[in-house]
């Protein structure tokens, strides 16, 4: 707006005071005239909101409307009209020399970690990590931002520093480079507390001794643990994410952000095609696929478990789907035993089950439109004429509509140790698949 020559006043609720100011600065307007209402706006009546309008800005203490009008009319100062470039400082390239204990404390106190112990990234350890790839240390790997901010760039060496800190071995390094090259940070800046996940396919799983059997998603193997953790450190240090109140706004936070949900697919015991092959890669390719969304939940609460007759896993999965938001997709993680059972039921390919789940997981258009999430994310797209949202907003209220636009919004992968036919469901959306081999 300001760029177009129209004076404007952004208005946010009080909780976003720090965020709004630092954001404006990052966009080059450190003196923007933002004003604030009390928080929250959602759930207040019209009368309560009128009281906000007639009341004071809780940040400045001045009457809100006077501030808005002043913001539009009081002449600019010299600083307000300044142009040019300013640099952002991230500190010296090397810390120390100092003791390991002091360095450990320095990294922790300066927000460069997840507040847990790290391996100190000495030049020797970083050099050893760099041996894990043929790419030169100064090659630019990509750009990353934890939200709608200016992205930071980073090179192979900077990724290696974070890999060392997280506890990775050099042979894990190509996976991390592949993840970092996607530009996706594992910490988002939304007020929702998002979760992130990666699915790893190909022979590299066995070469690194990744765990895809008992306890596949838990703390039972170094590559699963360290690679997942490194993604969060990469998001903080290379993408400037994870600063509460600035680049991280999740009101309650998400415990999965420590190590992210790392899933090495159990290709050996799965009766279905591996995920990367579905995405057009060869079975011998090494690929990491990234997902983002709300969470992951266990299938135990599902109805129609059919214990005494037949465990109806298709029905159970669909039942869990009904508790997800269609703003994000579904990532189903099946133990190999669950897949065996589904194949016996007739789902001999993933596609057959995806199709069945897509057709059979529905709700009325009324329920769909009543969801606050759908309103925020889908309604604007419907206004723009985007399908299927436009149809879903215009059909009669009692029309049954699917949860997701296509069967492809449902992803099925295999992990687990066959101690019980369980499954878990992530409310997570596929973002991208990246070749690991390219980063060897």
């Amino acid at each position: 707006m300001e760029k177009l020559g129209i004076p404007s006043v952004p208005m946010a609720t009080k909780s976003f005071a720090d965020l709004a100011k630092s954001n404006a600065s990052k966009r080059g307007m450190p003196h923007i005239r933002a004003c604030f209402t009390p928080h929250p706006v959602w759930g207040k009546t019209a009368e309560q909101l009128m009281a906000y309008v007639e009341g004071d800005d809780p940040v400045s203490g001045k009457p809100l409307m006077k501030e808005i009008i002043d913001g539009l009319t009081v002449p600019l100062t010299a600083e307000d009209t300044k142009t040019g470039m300013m640099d952002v400082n991230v500190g010296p390239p090397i810390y120390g020399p100092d003791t390991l204990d002091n360095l450990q404390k320095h990294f922790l106190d300066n927000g460069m970690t997840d507040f847990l112990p790290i391996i100190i990234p000495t030049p020797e350890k970083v050099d050893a990590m760099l041996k894990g790839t043929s790419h030169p240390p100064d090659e630019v790997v990509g750009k990353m931002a934890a939200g709608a901010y200016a992205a930071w760039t980073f090179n192979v060496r900077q990724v290696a520093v974070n890999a060392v800190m997280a506890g990775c071995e050099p042979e894990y390094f190509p996976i991390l480079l592949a993840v970092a090259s996607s530009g996706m940070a594992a910490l988002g800046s939304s007020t929702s507390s998002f979760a992130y996940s990666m699915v790893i396919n190909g022979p590299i799983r066995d070469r690194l001794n990744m765990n895809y059997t008992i306890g596949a998603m838990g703390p039972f193997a170094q590559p699963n643990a360290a690679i997942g953790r490194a993604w969060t450190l990469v998001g903080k240090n290379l993408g400037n994410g994870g600063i509460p109140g600035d680049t991280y706004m999740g009101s309650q936070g998400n415990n999965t952000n420590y190590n992210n949900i790392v899933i090495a697919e159990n290709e050996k015991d799965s009766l279905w095609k591996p995920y990367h092959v579905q995405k057009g890669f060869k079975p011998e390719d090494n690929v990491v696929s990234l997902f983002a969304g709300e969470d992951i939940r266990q299938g135990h609460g599902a109805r129609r478990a059919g214990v005494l007759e037949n465990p109806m896993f298709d029905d159970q999965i669909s039942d869990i789907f009904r508790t997800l938001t269609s703003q994000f997709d579904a990532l189903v993680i099946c133990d190999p035993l669950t897949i065996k059972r589904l194949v016996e039921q007739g789902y001999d390919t993933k596609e057959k089950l995806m199709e069945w789940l897509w057709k059979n997981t529905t709700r009325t258009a009324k329920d769909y439109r009543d969801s606050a999430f759908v309103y925020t994310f889908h309604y604007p797209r419907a206004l723009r004429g985007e399908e299927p949202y436009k149809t879903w907003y215009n059909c009669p209220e009692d029309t049954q509509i699917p949860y997701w636009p296509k069967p492809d919004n449902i992803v099925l992968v295999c992990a687990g140790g066959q101690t019980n036919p369980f499954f878990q469901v992530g409310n997570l959306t596929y973002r991208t698949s990246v070749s690991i081999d390219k980063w060897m």
Partner: protein
Amino acid sequence: MNRRKLLSLLGMSPAILAGESALAAQTEKKPAPATHSSAASAKPGTGPAKITTVNPKGMPPQIQLIPMAPRLDSLDGKTVYLVDTGFHGSDMLLEQIQEWFKTNMPGVTTVFKRKAGPYAQDDPALWKEIKEKGNAVIMAVGH
């Protein structure tokens, strides 16, 4: 993995398996690093300094060996209890075993029982009944 390897993982002496005295056969699991030396001090220029750290493991209790119950000469004419601990499908498996006994060892009386209480809980009433009326037990624990 065979039984011997598995038990050594537990920290149990392989000696028990070889039939030696089972009494407090303490073994020291060899850790990769040297087991003792005074905490070496840092000598810059002489390679990485050695340090000493403590073992974080708690104290496992001793294990009381339980002699197994004497076996029967033959199952003929005996009563065998088939106990279902409650995991999915084990009732149906035991029914099949019951069928098998009827066909192949008609002299055996089988009694099917579902253990009361959740799977990890004891059911003393059932054990008492078996002790009074039964001669042997087949217990389905799996899934």
